[in-house]
């Protein structure tokens, strides 16, 4: 065998084996624990079958967390995509290449910040008494504005931070995608006095539809990682209005009850849901 035939094996087999061990051992373990009644406090545990799963179906907080996670996905994905397309096109139309590059640099900053940092930066900006964002409201009305402890606004306030991190980042990607298009059709349309919106609706949109759909999918996957923001900014509160699935699983497993097995069963359901849904969508979009 020559080296060209052996290379794929020597390069792939060890890596894939390591990945499989690192991924499947915990997953198998999670499934295994989810059929037990293990807690953080007692070392003894026994198998109890599907009891955890049955309990989940009558757990109102679990249903709430499902609903909050669903809302979170919808809010963050749509707002990010709208902001990204809007800002990307705006940069493409109004800025010269040099200013564009500077703008891209600025717009990349939020996504590079640790989620923990972004969460703290904004939770202080949203502070009802001392926050900089709530200052204009206080100055005008003389009353404090409490966005993070109001059940109607809390989820949006947290989602705003997610938008702040991802919307600008995706705007840069949309700009790069626009720049990578062949310039001739756009110039031809401009020579024919096509309006800007017509150019984007009839020329760039059809060419960029596929990458934008992939981008939305990537955002949907990344939006599953809501925990950091929620944990720092609201801990799932007020009440349970911002309690997403990972936040609820964490608080069941660690904060309140230490019910590792119960949290595991939730994690298993999350895993099955996301893997099945995203694999299905991804394969459909990509073919």
């Amino acid at each position, binding site marked *: 065998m020559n080296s060209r035939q052996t290379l794929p094996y020597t390069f792939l087999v060890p*890596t894939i084996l390591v990945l499989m061990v690192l991924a499947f051992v*915990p997953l198998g373990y999670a499934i295994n*624990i989810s059929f037990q009644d293990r807690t953080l406090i007692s070392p003894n545990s026994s198998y109890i079958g599907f009891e955890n799963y049955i309990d989940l179906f009558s757990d109102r907080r679990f249903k709430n967390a499902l609903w909050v996670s669903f809302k979170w996905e919808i809010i963050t994905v749509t707002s990010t995509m709208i902001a990204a397309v809007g800002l990307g096109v705006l940069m493409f139309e109004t800025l010269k290449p040099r200013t564009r590059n500077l703008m891209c*640099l600025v717009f990349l900053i939020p996504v590079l910040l640790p989620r923990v940092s972004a969460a703290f930066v904004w939770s202080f900006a949203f502070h009802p008494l001392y926050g900089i964002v709530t200052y204009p409201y206080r100055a005008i009305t003389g009353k404090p504005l409490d966005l993070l402890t109001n059940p109607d606004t809390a989820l949006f306030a947290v989602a705003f931070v997610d938008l702040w991190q991802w919307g600008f980042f995706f705007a840069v990607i949309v700009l790069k995608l626009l720049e990578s298009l062949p310039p001739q059709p756009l110039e031809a349309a401009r020579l024919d006095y096509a309006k800007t919106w017509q150019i984007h609706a009839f020329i760039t949109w059809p060419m960029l539809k596929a990458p934008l759909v992939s981008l939305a999918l990537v955002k949907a996957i990344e939006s599953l990682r809501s925990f950091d923001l929620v944990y720092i900014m609201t801990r799932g509160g007020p009440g349970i209005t911002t309690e997403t699935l990972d936040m609820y699983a964490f608080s069941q497993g660690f904060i309140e009850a230490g019910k590792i097995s119960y949290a595991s069963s939730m994690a298993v359901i999350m895993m099955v849901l996301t893997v099945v849904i995203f694999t299905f969508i991804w394969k459909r979009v990509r073919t």
Partner: protein
Amino acid sequence: MKASHIIGKAFLALMAFIVLFPIFWTALNAFKVNADILVTTPKFVFEPTFDNIAYVLSRNSVMAALTNSLVISLTSVVIGIALGLPAAYAVARYPNRWTEEIQFFVLSLRFLPPVAVAIPLMVIWLNLGLYDSWTAMIATYSLLTISITIWLAVPAFQQVPKAIEEAARVDGYGAYAVFLKIALPVAMKTLIGAIAFSFVLIWNEFLIALMLTTGKAKTLPIVASEMSQVGMDVPWGILNAAVILLSIPPLLLLGLLSGFMNSMFSNKSR
């Protein structure tokens, strides 16, 4: 210049302000005493103090966390490079049904909710006696670094012109020599960006670290987040200083990552 262009530019300037101002404000607050922060009308002019930063830097827990974060991030990034780059090259250069499946498998690892990995891993590391250790954290994070390195390095290797590799082969280079001496150096500029991305991802990681460390292996995001619980009141000045310290390493890589995005997208059209 058209009026719509001016409005557009003004709007973009406002957006840049929304990006930068909160961070600038946080940095400013890091130099304020609590009495200057906890005012109803925000203060731009104040007597700067270095107490917050000095406090953060003098804490043993912060220094330990900084060491932990650096060791854990860098080691798992190196493992990601060692295992991820060759795999990415094989996927990029030997496309067939299997490598396609492998690429999807690597991507699907990103579908997994971190909680679903962290809860069982906690039990596993406890059973092995490795809970709250560098080994446990590095092994766990390697799953992330290997997959993200593969995912970002495949396009980087695909951009290497095949003709160069063919020429090297004609000169008598074996497949491994082509990888090491040709593909790797040619793709290096883009690869460094991919590696920087995997570093930022690990440096910023919070949930897994929160579940898998309780003491000696705590990473910086965890310790920074705990700064909000010092004493009775929230020590905002100290917290802001910690947030800034935590954010510096990813921001140092800004230029590198922006260049990476340029090379990832510009070559697509060629």
